[in-house]
Structure formats: structure tokens, C-alpha cells
């Protein structure tokens, strides 16, 4: 296993670790962004989907005659028009379980529809308004079949002879029966996490373009994982890697859902090639709420065995995962993540988890920011609060007692099942960090204050939750960096920007190692024709993995620059430094630079051009390529704290304070990390209190506009407080990074539930998220208030 030395802190660095302004911002505040909707080609066709209006049924007839008569309509496709196009494949096709392959989504429904929103036909027209008119004229006759809307109900039929219960995933360690036999007390809870999702403000978009001159298909509007999606498309469409390229522009938020490969992405490509015309598709908001991945919905029946002191002897969790109508690109990975991370940062004697992966007649589900962790943290921390209540132990003391002690780190959580990946926790003093966070929140004082308010008749309470995160999955990512003859630096990565500030992070890392101004670094991402491999932006891996690849490449390029400069300046390379893009003799620390020969990077690039006599067998130009390889992920951790008050009359929960304490190892840009934490936390409040994709019993979706699907507005949320610590840098990469995209949201459901219980004085009152005002009122009514 890699073990790198502790990296410097920001005060010993020029730009890495500093809260500098983002290089992304100037074009975005001027309205110069290039989002999917802004991409246009001459002579383009517009695609509009015809979607199923019933949740489950057999397709009897699709009649497009009236639609085709409309002037401007070029074609209407059903699955019969694309018989050779396979179902949307898994991203990790070789790793996905064989049992779930028949449940992949066809590009257009074949024979059956399985959710309201299932694409049945595609209309192509010269104008988007005409395409929409024509879609309304396509007649779809469907013979209804029984509808299944609950994953914990008895399974139904997915296809002739194929059940909606394809798979149960299991993880376990230790002797669970012995743990329960020895228990001083056993806690049992039935907990539900609501169906909600990322819902980026920009809807999806896909523009297919076929370059017939070079036989290259282009997909514009790609996001998140352009290189991985290219690989999938190569497999699905039978192309060579040179025949298709994906291009990412600006992306209006990702959160896990945007940028996965969806039916519409495949359709615009197939259509662009067949029609010989560019094809543009922009999702509308109703489609976005019923067609883009949902997430989160699980029901857990969990039992915990504890000793007299509340120490966790065993956790036995059985849960039902509502996958929706099809299995999308992630396969069953959210189920696996839920159970592998469920015990979090606590030391648990024995563990047994069974996750039932169930299909229902609802929108397909996949990953949303902190997939499996938002869910698992809710379950684990509800268990902690329940133990504290049962045994009369203080919530904080109980958690502290169960945290993995610093002396036992690094600590590996491994599972009995073959193929179940172990969690080798890399660094951290969890109890020490918890104390620091509690002090920063002024927990004792705040808790006493809430108690006094309750004594005065208010429903005010405090909540606490501890969480573990995972980031930086390998195995490797590469980068290429060049300096041109103007001195400008170009960093080419296979990463992706979903709005999180990827360019600034990479520019800071490059600028630190290379000795240039980060504002002069241009960062390329999401362009498959610029670099062959890339891991994109998901699971908090961009900064860790691509960031370290950029660091390794910049260090290598620095070596090349200094070796040429040493020859030109007739000074040993060890005595040279690069400062603000100029190579010069190194000054003694703190003293002014000695006068002497120097050369700017642009001049140096010119001196080593193709006609240079300095090359002596070396390739011309200032360019380097390098890779970063890692065997293991990294494990950041944190805690959430909250204060809420409840209006007993309306059931409204007001969040007065929400703080996230987080050890990120090393922050590349603390300003942006705070932004990630705050933004994630507010999304978490959405899932805890407001957002839910509800369905009628017949499978009709009831949240299809922003008037039904309530995302937090500015008046619903408090200022999010943060405490970022850098006490536990990861030993697994040279920069000590651990990733920061998912911490903000991780335990928000858990901490709000904890605070609500406290506010109303009913331990275990919250068993279901989101705690909407009607649910809050129901809880209060049940307790006689």
C-alpha cells in the first residue's frame, strides 16, 4: 500500500490550499456559458420523446400517421425502427451481477412499458415546437398490467416469467447470532428514506452530430463521465473508439444523475447518423422529474444488539431498495454501498446485512450525491439515538464510546462474502475530531439552551450525527500538461466539470508544482478526442485522482523545464526555481532573489521547438504526461450538528442551525470546499424535510413540477456553518487529499431526525424521511399534541 509523507499545509504553499477566486466564473457571470441548450448546429433536427402515460402495460399499438402528416416532421421511431440498438449497458459491464442484466432499459420500450415516462417513441422535426405538437399526435394504446409501487410488497412480474426481485446483496462479518445472544438490550427499528434525487437546475440535453467526412459520431451535452460513456457507446453501437467522441460543455449541476448514459443520448447519435443531420434533444422539466434518475428510496428493518454500556455488539439489517422500473448504468451498486458503509466510523462486533434489490413501476433509480451514505447514515444514527434513549446514555457519550479509537487506526472493515470490497480506513482520530467539532458548535451550551426553551414550552431541539465518507476510487488517472510559446499552460484531463470548480482545482494544483499563475492555466475536461482515458467527476474522485495525476504531471514537466533551463542558463537545475512563469536562480528563503540570468517559460518553449539544436535526441516542446495510480480509496469523515424548532400547529420544521465538521485531509481551495459542504447540506435538507417523488397507487407520479417537488429556497434554510479540519491527510496520495463533494449531504437526514426527536421529546419519533409538515403533524397527533 502506498504511504506518502505528510504534505505541507497551505501556509507553506503558494496557491494550493488557498481560497482563490474561480477561473470558471468570468464567462458564467457574463452569460457566455455553453450549456447543452446553447449548442446548435445548422440544419439540425429536434427530437421529442413520446412517453408512457401508464405505469405498467403491454404496448398494443403505436400509430404515428397523424404525427407524420404534420409539416416539418421528418420521422417517428418506435423500437421497431432500431432493432439492432441494445439496452443501455452497465458502466462496469464486467463487474455487474449476471442476474440483473435482463432488467436493463431498452432505448425505446419493447413490448411493455414499466413506468410513467418510459420512452415509447421518438419524434424528429425541423422545429422543437412542431416536434412537441407531433408527439401529442402519436397514439399509443396500452393494455394495463398490475402495478407495483412498493419495493417491500411481494414481488410482481417484470417480464414473462421474470420476477421483480432479481437479487439480494449480502454483507457480513463476525458472529451475529452470538452478538444477539449476548446482548444486554436489542433495539429494533423500521426506517424509510423517501424517493428524491439530485434535480440539477439545468435539465439534460444531448446533441448528436455525424461528421461523415471523417466517419465520426459526436455527442455534445455529455457530462460527468464522458470517457466512460464513450466506452459504453463503443460497445453498444459496435464502433471503434476513433469513430465516436463525447464533448462536455458547461454543466448546470450534476449530483450523480446528470451525465449518466440515458436512452435519449443513444437516440440522438443513431438518428444523427441515419438522417445525416444533427439531432438536438433538450429535456423539459416534467420529463426531468419522471425520466432522469431518482434515488434513495429504501426501507430498513434494522436490529442492534448492545451491551450494558451501549457498545455495539451487532447490527442486523434487512432492507428493500426501490430500484424503479429498470436497472440503469450503475447496476446494483447503491445497494452494495449502502451496506458496506452502514456501520460508518463505529466499531461494531458483528454485522449482517441483506439488501433486496427490487424493481417497481416507478422512474428508475441510481446514484445521487453520497449514494448509499445518506441512507445508511440515517439508519445507523437513528439506531444510535435509539440506544441512547433505551439505556439512558447521553447521545454524544454513546457515539464517542462506539467510535473506532485512534490507537486502532488504520482500521480495516472487511466482509465475509467473496467479492465484497473491504474498507481500509486510512487515517484519523475520530474521537479527537468529535471533541473538536462539539466544542466548535458549543454543543453543551446549545443543548442546555434548547432544554431551557422546551421548559418554556417551545419545541426546540438539537441533533448530532457522525459519518464516514469514501473518495478517490482508482485505479488510475492520467493527465497531459503543455506550455506553449506564449507561456500559457494547458492541462488536459479526462476529468469532468459538473459545476463544482474542477478547472480551478486542477489549475491550482498545476500552478503550485509548475510555478505559474493559476489564472493562466487552461484546463481541458470532458473531451474524449483530447485524451484517451478519463474517470470523470463522480464519487468524489476528481480532486483526489485527477488532482494527483495533474500534480504528478506538473512535477514531471517542472523537471523537464529545469533541465532545459539548466543548460541554457548554465546553472545546476537544483539551484533553479520557477516563479510566476519565469525560471530563475533560487533565492535563499526569505531573502530577495539574486540578480542573474532568467528565462520565461514561453521563451523556453520557443527555444525547444522542432527546429531547436538543444534537443539532443529529446522530443521538442514543453509537454509531459503522467499517471497517478492507487490501490485504495480514501476515507474522510465528519459530523453534523443541528438545532431545529417545530411549529406544533402547522408541523413546519425550522432549521435554526446546521453545522458540518469535516476532515478533508487537505483542502485544495477552502472557499470552494465550504461551497460544496453548504450546497450539499441544503440538498440534504431537501431530502430530510421537503423533497419527495410521491406516486399514486396506480403508479401515476404526483411530483411532476417544481410546485409539487419542493426544493429548498433561500427562506427555508439557515446559513450553513462549517468546520474544516486537515488533521488527517491521506497517506495514500502525495497531496494528502480526501475529496469533498459528498460530505455536506451525508448525515443531514440523520441529524435532522435526531433534532426533531429531541425537540418534541419523543425518542424514535422520526422513522421516515422527508419529515414534511403533514408527517410532523401526524407524529404530534399520535403523541396526543
Amino acid at each position, binding site marked *: 500500500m502506498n504511504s506518502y509523507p505528510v504534505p505541507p499545509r497551505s501556509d507553506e504553499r503558494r496557491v494550493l490550499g488557498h481560497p482563490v477566486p474561480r477561473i470558471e466564473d468570468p464567462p458564467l457571470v457574463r452569460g457566455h456559458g455553453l450549456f447543452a441548450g*446553447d449548442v446548435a448546429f445548422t440544419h439540425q433536427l429536434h427530437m421529442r420523446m413520446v412517453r408512457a402515460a401508464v405505469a405498467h402495460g403491454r404496448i398494443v399499438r403505436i400509430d404515428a400517421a397523424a404525427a407524420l402528416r404534420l409539416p416539418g416532421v421528418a420521422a417517428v421511431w418506435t423500437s421497431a425502427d432500431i432493432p439492432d440498438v441494445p439496452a443501455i449497458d452497465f458502466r462496469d459491464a464486467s463487474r455487474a451481477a449476471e442476474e440483473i442484466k435482463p432488467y436493463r432499459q431498452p432505448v425505446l420500450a419493447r413490448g411493455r412499458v414499466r413506468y410513467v415516462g418510459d420512452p415509447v417513441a421518438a419524434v424528429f422535426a425541423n422545429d422543437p415546437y412542431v416536434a412537441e405538437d407531433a408527439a401529442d399526435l402519436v397514439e399509443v394504446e396500452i393494455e394495463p398490467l398490475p402495478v407495483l409501487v412498493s419495493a417491500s410488497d411481494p414481488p410482481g412480474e417484470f417480464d414473462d416469467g421474470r420476477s421483480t426481485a432479481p437479487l439480494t446483496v449480502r454483507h457480513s462479518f463476525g458472529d451475529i447470532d452470538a452478538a444477539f445472544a449476548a446482548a444486554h438490550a436489542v433495539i429494533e427499528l423500521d426506517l424509510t428514506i423517501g424517493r428524491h434525487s439530485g434535480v440539477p*437546475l439545468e435539465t439534460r440535453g444531448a446533441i448528436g452530430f455525424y461528421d461523415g467526412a471523417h466517419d465520426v459520431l459526436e455527442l455534445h451535452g455529455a457530462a460527468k463521465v464522458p470517457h466512460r460513456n464513450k466506452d459504453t457507446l463503443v460497445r453498444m453501437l459496435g464502433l471503434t473508439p476513433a469513430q465516436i467522441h463525447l464533448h462536455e460543455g*458547461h454543466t448546470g449541476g450534476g449530483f450523480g444523475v446528470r451525465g449518466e448514459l440515458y436512452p435519449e443520448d443513444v437516440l440522438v447519435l443513431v438518428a444523427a447518423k441515419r438522417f445525416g443531420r444533427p439531432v438536438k434533444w433538450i429535456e423539459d422539466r416534467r420529463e426531468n422529474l419522471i425520466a432522469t434518475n431518482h434515488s434513495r428510496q429504501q426501507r430498513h428493518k434494522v436490529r442492534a444488539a448492545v451491551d450494558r454500556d451501549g457498545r455495539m455488539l451487532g447490527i442486523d439489517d434487512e432492507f428493500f431498495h426501490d430500484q424503479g422500473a429498470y436497472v440503469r448504468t450503475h447496476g446494483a451498486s447503491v445497494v452494495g454501498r449502502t451496506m458496506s458503509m452502514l456501520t460508518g466510523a463505529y466499531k461494531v462486533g458483528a454485522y449482517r446485512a441483506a439488501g433486496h434489490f427490487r424493481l417497481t413501476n416507478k422512474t428508475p433509480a441510481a446514484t445521487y450525491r453520497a449514494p448509499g451514505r445518506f441512507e445508511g447514515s440515517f439508519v445507523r444514527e437513528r439506531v444510535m439515538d435509539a440506544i441512547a434513549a433505551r439505556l439512558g446514555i447521553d447521545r454524544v457519550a454513546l457515539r464517542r464510546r462506539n467510535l473506532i479509537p485512534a490507537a486502532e487506526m488504520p482500521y480495516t472493515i472487511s466482509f465475509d462474502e467473496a467479492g465484497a470490497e473491504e474498507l481500509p480506513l486510512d487515517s484519523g482520530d475520530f474521537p479527537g475530531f468529535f471533541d473538536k467539532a462539539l466544542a466548535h458548535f458549543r454543543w453543551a451550551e446549545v443543548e442546555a439552551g434548547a432544554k431551557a426553551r422546551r421548559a418554556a414550552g417551545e419545541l426546540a431541539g438539537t441533533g448530532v450525527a457522525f459519518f464516514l465518507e469514501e473518495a478517490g476510487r482508482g485505479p488510475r488517472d492520467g493527465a497531459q500538461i503543455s506550455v506553449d510559446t506564449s507561456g500559457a499552460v494547458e492541462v488536459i484531463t479526462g476529468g469532468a466539470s459538473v459545476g*463544482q470548480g474542477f478547472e480551478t482545482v486542477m489549475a491550482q494544483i498545476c500552478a503550485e508544482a509548475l510555478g505559474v499563475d493559476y489564472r493562466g492555466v487552461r484546463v481541458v475536461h470532458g473531451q474524449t478526442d483530447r485524451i484517451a482515458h478519463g474517470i470523470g467527476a463522480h464519487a468524489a474522485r476528481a480532486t483526489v485522482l485527477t488532482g494527483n495525476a495533474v500534480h504528478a504531471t506538473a512535477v514531471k514537466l517542472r523537471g523537464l523545464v529545469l533541465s532545459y533551463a539548466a543548460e541554457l542558463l548554465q546553472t545546476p537545475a537544483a539551484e533553479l526555481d520557477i516563479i510566476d512563469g519565469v525560471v530563475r536562480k533560487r533565492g535563499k528563503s526569505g531573502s530577495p532573489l539574486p540578480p542573474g540570468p532568467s528565462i520565461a517559460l514561453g521563451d523556453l518553449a520557443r527555444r525547444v521547438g522542432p527546429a531547436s539544436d538543444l534537443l539532443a535526441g529529446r522530443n521538442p516542446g514543453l509537454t509531459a504526461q503522467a499517471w497517478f495510480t492507487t490501490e485504495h480509496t480514501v476515507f474522510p469523515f465528519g459530523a453534523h450538528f443541528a438545532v431545529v424548532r417545530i411549529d406544533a400547529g402547522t408541523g413546519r420544521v425550522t432549521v435554526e442551525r446546521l453545522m458540518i465538521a469535516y476532515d478533508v485531509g487537505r483542502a485544495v481551495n477552502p472557499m470552494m470546499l465550504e*461551497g460544496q459542504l453548504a450546497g450539499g447540506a*441544503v440538498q440534504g435538507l431537501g431530502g430530510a424535510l421537503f423533497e419527495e417523488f410521491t406516486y399514486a397507487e396506480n403508479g401515476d407520479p404526483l411530483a411532476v413540477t*417544481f410546485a409539487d417537488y419542493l426544493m429548498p*429556497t433561500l427562506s427555508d434554510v439557515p446559513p450553513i456553518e462549517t468546520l474544516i479540519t486537515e488533521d488527517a491527510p491521506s497517506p495514500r496520495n502525495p497531496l494528502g487529499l480526501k475529496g469533498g463533494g459528498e460530505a455536506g449531504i451525508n448525515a443531514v437526514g440523520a441529524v435532522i431526525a435526531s433534532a426533531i426527536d429531541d425537540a418534541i421529546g419523543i425518542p424514535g419519533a422520526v422513522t421516515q424521511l422527508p419529515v414534511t409538515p403533514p408527517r410532523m403533524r401526524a407524529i404530534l397527533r399520535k403523541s396526543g399534541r
Partner: protein
Amino acid sequence: MIEKFDITLNINGRDHPIRVEPRRTLVDAIRDDCGQTGTHIGCEHGICGACTIILDDDAVRACLMFAVQADGRKIRTVEGLADGDRLHPIQQAFIDHHGLQCGFCTPGFLMLAVNVLERQPDISDDEMLDVLASNLCRCTGYQNIIKAVRAAAAEMRKAAT
């Protein structure tokens, strides 16, 4: 075939003579007929505010109006905020205070904030927050947007004295 009408949209001081169906939304006309794609479409049902523009003196949602209703009226969009290389104080404040991440909602927030600060330079903080609560942002958690607008308000008041 639906009859089309000749109208002129005046965007950031420049006339765009265009021919549109009466059902064409103002935001589609601004983006696709006039090529000003800085104004974004987030929901097309008037809730998210990503398409907020200033029409004469009002911040409006361009997805909820037809283009023909804006014929001959003065439209301001995000592209008109900066004075050449010099950013408007609200644009600079959004950069300085990290008031944007993906940037998709940003044009709508900028136009909403500019309109309220121009109309009511001395607006109270509470009233301003109430106005800003009418738009959605999915990335920032809002606090940095509030900081940016407060800073821009101070800057604009200073410039006005």
C-alpha cells in the same frame, strides 16, 4: 400552419427584428431567434427563475410571457450587465463571494438582484432576502448569493453617492 408575426425585441439596446408564432415564449425568442443564450431555461413553469430578465423596469420570468407581448419593449439580459471589460458590481460580487458553482441559475439571480437594487437601493435586508427567495439554486446553499448581493448593494449605493 400557424401564422407568424413580425415583431422587434430590443435587447440590451439593440433591435432584433424577428418573425415568430404567437405561441412562442419570450425566452425561446431571446435565446433561439436573437441568439442571446445567457438567459437560461430551468422549468418553463415560472418557479425556478433561471430565465429572469428585466422588461422595461420589472424583473420578469421570460418563460411565462410570449415573445409578441414584448414587442417594442426594452429587454435587459445578463449579456448587457458588463460595460465592455468592466463587470457590473453584482457580477464582480458573485465572483468575489463564490456566489455561483455551476452558473446555470446565475443569470436569473443577477437580473433579479440588479432590478431590485436599482428600484430600491435602500431596501432592507429582510425585504431583499424575500425577493431573492423567489429563485432556485441547487448548488450553493444560497448563503454566498446573499453575501454577494449584500456586497453589490453596498457597492452600488457607494457609486450612486
